[in-house]
């Protein structure tokens, strides 16, 4: 008879960052993690999120201090550039580490 799994070996689920855990935000964080900075249009194209959706998730991530949003004008057009903050980069790495531990 196999012994029951030892639940104490698992990292507590509460350690999983719920803000990043949401699929759309996870996608945004992952895309920003592999580049230095990207603008709103690029993220919309790559994540296939709508303008409103991306905008709302972007605000939540910005409030949490995970991303930095820089608004400017490029060729007289408004341009929103996003990048991960150091805290965001760390949070994403921790999230990946925790998930790996949980599902290993």
């Amino acid at each position, binding site marked *: 008879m196999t012994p029951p799994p030892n639940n104490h070996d698992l990292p507590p689920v509460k350690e999983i960052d719920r803000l990043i855990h949401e699929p759309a935000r996870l996608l945004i964080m*992952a*895309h920003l993690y592999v580049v*230095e900075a*990207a*603008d709103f*249009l*690029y993220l919309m*194209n790559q994540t296939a999120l709508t303008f409103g959706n991306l905008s709302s998730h972007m605000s939540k991530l910005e409030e949490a201090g995970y991303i930095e949003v820089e608004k400017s004008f490029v060729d007289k057009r408004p341009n929103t*550039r996003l990048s991960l903050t150091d805290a965001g980069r760390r949070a994403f790495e921790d999230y990946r580490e925790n998930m790996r531990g949980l599902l290993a």
Partner: protein
Amino acid sequence: MLTDDVDLKEIERRALTAYHEDGLLDIFIGGYLLFFGLSSFIEFEHRIVVSWFLPALGTLLYSEAKKRVTYPRLGYVRFTKEMKHRISINMFMVLFFAALVTLTGLFTNMGVPERAPWGTLLLNQYNLLFLGGVFAVTFLMMGRIMSISRLYQYSVISLLVFFAGYFYLDSPFIVSEQSLGAPCAILGVMMVGIGASHLRRFIGRYPKEA
């Protein structure tokens, strides 16, 4: 999706692939090859100088085209230092490739004395085969580094075009400038055509925001 299988390598690869989805790279490399090929049929002054000057001009035009065509449609992305390093290696390779074509052209122009070392004679005799191999390897490496699978197609196409050129145009002992120019021009036309079709698809897929 919610596991550690958020495949960062794949996301990075897709970022690079999307950046080159516009076909501009094909158009610029193909355009240069086309110029190089056609110019061997037309005699004009300072041809060598123009051949050297064109890659530099092409690089400037390429970055301007990226700004006007790609960024307003796909959006702007600044790659990490590691990726930038990889991109600059790619750019170096493109320039190196252009220089190599020009040098080989010069080599063919100059001709080889009868008592030249056997390696030089062999290179001169099988110039087109050698050049086809160089093109194929260059495209293969570029495709791998830049994650652009259509560059593999160019690798095969250049082998076919140059090998066909060797058997149909080139006499083993008479290496003419035109026999080098024709395969370059054919490859150039094909690359410009494929690039233009990618550009058309890219513009349709990513319409410019009003």
